[in-house]
């Protein structure tokens, strides 16, 4: 019953968001596109990195691959087919990268994924300069920005649905076990490599699609724009702020941070990156597990407080100890 109500509510919100561009005008629609894009990126990132605790900085590698696939193919193939090709390219790269790196532990994985994003950017730059003889590409599509927004909104909804289904499935249980103790996971018979690879692939395909769908909005793209490492860092910090272990965590983190970054880059263009860096540190120090978990723990403490009931205090102590 609660599931039905939840889905009905999500449907109403989604319908409301879908008609929003009709009232908001171009600036508002632009904001919605950026926001929906980051909510999707952060949710897709958290789908893999939340439970496995493998911090990936490869977000922009896949995002840029999606954008470039769109820029290269949009004139020669029907639009839906370009999206399919982009998803396929993202999948293949994710499988190759995943197979070769998911055995790497913690910090090595972080560094590798960061390096991967740089490598892809350099490769694309080299190819454009030496083979095609250009550095940037123009994209002119026949549809307006509302259509870009609707596609992103659909992808965003699909991402939440996938995350929700995974959370309730056998793979969801496997992910929780892996996140807690990988040694126990393998001794329970879980093929941790396969589970991680599958999740990394799903997450990367979604990220690739965000890049492909958003690319036409820029009308002009070049490697420095679509492979900008800030995209990876923003995605990561949004997911961490909200809480990467919860379904709604990335959403809760992405919306306010995106609006804040928009405001900062408009009003303090020169100090933007300094403020960004300080904010990163503040979030990691103050809310390492995210807003949602912080709020939940706080709520539980408050509920436990009534002092006249002695048993509640004892129970509280037991849980904390």
């Amino acid at each position: 019953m609660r599931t039905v109500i939840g889905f009905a509510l999500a449907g109403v919100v989604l319908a409301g968001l879908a008609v929003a561009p009709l009232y908001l005008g171009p600036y508002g629609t632009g904001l919605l596109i950026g926001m929906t894009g980051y909510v999707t990126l952060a949710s897709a990132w958290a789908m893999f990195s939340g439970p496995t605790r493998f911090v990936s900085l490869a977000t922009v590698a896949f995002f840029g691959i999606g954008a470039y696939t769109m820029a290269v193919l949009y004139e020669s193939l029907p639009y839906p087919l370009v999206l399919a090709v982009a998803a396929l390219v993202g999948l293949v790269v994710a499988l190759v990268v995943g197979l070769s790196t998911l055995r790497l532990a913690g910090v090595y994985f972080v560094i590798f994924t960061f390096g991967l994003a740089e490598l892809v950017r350099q490769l694309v730059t080299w190819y454009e300069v030496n083979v095609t003889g250009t550095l940037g590409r123009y994209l002119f599509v026949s549809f307006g920005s509302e259509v870009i927004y609707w596609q992103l909104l659909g992808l965003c909804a699909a991402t939440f649905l996938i995350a929700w289904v995974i959370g309730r499935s056998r793979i969801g249980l496997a992910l929780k076990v892996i996140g807690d103790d990988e040694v126990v996971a393998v001794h329970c018979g879980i093929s941790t490599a396969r589970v991680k690879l599958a999740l990394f692939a799903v997450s990367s395909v979604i990220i690739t699609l965000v890049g492909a769908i958003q690319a036409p909005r820029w009308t002009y793209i070049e490697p420095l724009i679509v492979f900008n490492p800030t995209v990876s860092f923003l995605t990561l910090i949004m997911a961490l702020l909200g809480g990467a272990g919860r379904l709604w965590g990335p959403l809760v983190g992405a919306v306010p941070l995106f609006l804040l970054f928009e405001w900062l880059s408009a009003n303090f263009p020169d100090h933007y990156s300094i403020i960004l860096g300080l904010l990163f540190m503040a979030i990691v120090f103050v809310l390492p597990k995210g807003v949602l978990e912080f709020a939940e723990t706080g709520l539980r403490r408050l509920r436990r407080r009534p002092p006249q009931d002695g048993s509640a205090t004892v129970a509280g102590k037991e849980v904390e100890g």
Partner: protein
Amino acid sequence: MTPLLSIDELTKRFGGLTAVDRISFSMEEGEAVALLGPNGSGKTTVLNMISGHLPASAGRIRLGGTTISGLPAHRIAHHGVARTFQLVRVLPSLSVEENVLAAIRFRVRPASAAEADEEARSLLERVGLAGRGGEPAAALTYIDQKRMELARALGSRPSLLLLDEWLAGLNPSELRIGIDLIARLNDTGMTVLLVEHVMDAVRALCPRAIVMNAGRKIADGATAEVLKDPEVVRAYLGESDAVA
């Protein structure tokens, strides 16, 4: 009849140190065997190689005729080896029931979601944790964590159960419950290999014992005989005491 477990010249080297040195033994189905020896003699390393937690440097492990040494740990689990850990490993952010479900839902023939819940409940009942499935695993007491770990191992429906000092740290009444539990498991046909320092438990549970010292097997036979063996006594008490 082929033995359930057969270990052949099993060796583990850590750099220059040989922790396990050409150990060979086999176990029949339904046997309960104790693996004894002073601290650092290589017992846990043997268990780690059987369960696939550590790769063997040399030698071979076969389970029911299939060579399992060299396989990744999750495949070995699927072949029928389950274990508990010397330092209890609970999945702290999961509930007690989910801890057990992890094994039930990822064994070779996983149960469907509904059957799995039912099975987890009955396993928890079997180890003395009836009705506790909803509690967070991190909040369990030490003995209850050990019980839960045993239920999780049983959730894999193993043919061979490896218990690494499962009885250590229990008080006398808990110990009696623990020994009872393992005895009943063994009575139902479960093959058990246990590393244990609690000698009362070893005598009560295991008709046969294998003793290791400094990575080598120094005795293998009826428990009462083995414990009287001068070399075993020397290994436990130290050279000078035995001579004096």
